């Protein structure tokens, strides 16, 4: 993703560096500041108008060959606001690969999530599976996380917000991975379901706000620090701010209990280098873990944070 972003950096400064280049097109005359004979000065005075007995200015539209309008999508088109806890729920079909790296003294767990999503105007489904590399007393090992299945139903516009309800499921399907990152259910072997409500508000063209609430029941392999079963409730709020046609910022705050990271702050930069492609990078900061307010055995202190990267493609 970094290589991709660097290679695209010069292009980011342009409005549309790729979309209209077509070898079959006529050479394109760059517009000049100087008025031409074919282009009457819009605010010309009557004295400057051409005499009546002179040929009238030609109609350039009829003489120029018709330019083919390229079929293109703008960067960011089809993309929807998404955080680290807040899921994308608008009509959105595509795939994503994401990477979480727990960095710092108590870090060492890496997780990669591969997922696909399909939705129409009313319903949406997603499937994903994470795999992980993590530390054990015997050295590093790799394992598969829990299979994730999500389903969404759009309630539509209700008041000022676009609302959606969903069901998020996860279940162990392979050898257990005895670790976790920020989302407690991704890796540690277990199963469960959450009922989710999300609402999208767009105060202006550049800003989206998403609210999320969830309630679920979960079972897990009950080795410390996980209980064998637990109820989880949570809430999150996300703000997505578009800075330019290709770049935006995402901030998210989330709380959930029971969870190994009960409160987190997330900051992401999103870049849409090509139509349908979105790259994001940022950090998830487990604030309550830093304060020692976590059910895991971690002393207070800034010992870890999670670097996150993902790349998604919208079809």
């Amino acid at each position, binding site marked *: 993703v970094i290589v991709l972003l660097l290679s695209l950096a010069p292009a980011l400064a342009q409005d549309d560096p790729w979309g209209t280049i077509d070898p079959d097109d006529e050479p394109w005359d760059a517009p000049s500041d100087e008025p031409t004979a074919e282009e009457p000065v819009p605010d010309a005075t009557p004295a400057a108008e051409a005499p009546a007995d002179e040929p009238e200015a030609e109609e350039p539209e009829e003489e120029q060959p018709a330019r083919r309008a390229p079929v293109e999508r703008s960067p960011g088109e089809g993309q929807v606001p998404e955080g680290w806890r807040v899921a994308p729920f608008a009509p959105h079909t595509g795939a994503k690969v994401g990477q979480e790296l727990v960095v710092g003294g108590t870090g060492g767990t890496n997780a990669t999530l591969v997922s696909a999503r399909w939705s129409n105007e009313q319903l949406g489904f997603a499937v994903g599976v994470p795999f992980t590399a993590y530390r054990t007393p015997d050295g590093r090992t790799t394992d598969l996380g829990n299979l994730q299945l999500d389903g969404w139903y759009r309630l539509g516009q209700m008041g000022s917000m676009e609302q959606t309800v969903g069901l998020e499921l996860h279940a162990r399907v392979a050898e257990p991975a005895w670790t976790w990152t920020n989302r407690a259910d991704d890796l540690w072997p277990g199963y469960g379901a959450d009922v989710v409500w999300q609402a999208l508000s767009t105060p202006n063209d550049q800003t989206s706000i998403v609210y999320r609430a969830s309630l679920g029941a979960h079972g897990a392999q009950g080795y*410390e620090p996980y209980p064998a079963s637990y109820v989880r409730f949570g809430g999150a709020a996300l703000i997505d701010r578009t800075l330019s046609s290709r770049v935006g910022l995402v901030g998210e705050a989330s709380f959930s209990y029971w969870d190994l990271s009960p409160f987190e702050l997330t900051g992401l930069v999103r870049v849409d280098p090509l139509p349908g492609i979105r790259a994001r990078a940022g950090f998830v900061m487990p604030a309550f873990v830093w304060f020692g307010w976590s059910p895991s*055995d971690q002393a207070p202190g800034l010992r870890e944070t999670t670097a996150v990267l993902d790349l998604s493609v919208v079809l």
Partner: protein
Amino acid sequence: MRSRSLWFAAFLAGCDEPTLNPQDSFVSPLAGQTGVPSDMELLVRGGAVEIPPDYAVGDVIRVVDLQDGGFVAGQVLMEGWDLRFVAEEPWVDGRRYAWTVDPASHVPHGPELPIPANLVGTSAFGTSEAIDLLGSTLDDDQRACLVASHPLEEVGEVRITANDVEVEDVTLEELREIEWVPGFARDPSDPYVQVWCVNSATPIAAGAVLRVWWGEQGPWSLTVREIPVEDLVIELHRGVLP
């Protein structure tokens, strides 16, 4: 399930942690015990909750040979709530060893072995037959009692001073184990410790500083405490006081 997760939940709910009996949580051998058999395993009872099968326990227990300062090679095994250290080679006769139960033995973001705080720490044991006195307290009859580091076949001659005043007409009476040990389960080969109570013409009060000569050995300096004898033994086990 005795779980930190539940404790965390209990904390949020304003409840107390679950209570443990002395028999539920202790280490063996006792701090300072001598005469430990060459094949005796080191036991941490109540130190383990389940961890995933085939998942390594880690260096929860570390043993150092105090003669050469080197770590003793061995395995930490988990059986139910017990952790056991099994040395690769038998304990060498006539040596002293220090052993440490470490609270931070698990890797971050991995299954945890929450070792209770009372079990964490370092103590020493020896394999020689040399006697040591590990503590002193008053029994129910207000007699000063001494905990010997291993059982003695013969008492021999004992001389005691209390606050530098000679204690007259000293005789020792063994306190039978059943009278003071609250049922610690232990290795059948473990000779354990012995408690002797002092019968004398001179009364000994709590807080007195005793100096004790036991045959050719000594003197040991001990302060007489005022706790039940069984509590003193539980302390040497790093157990939870009732």
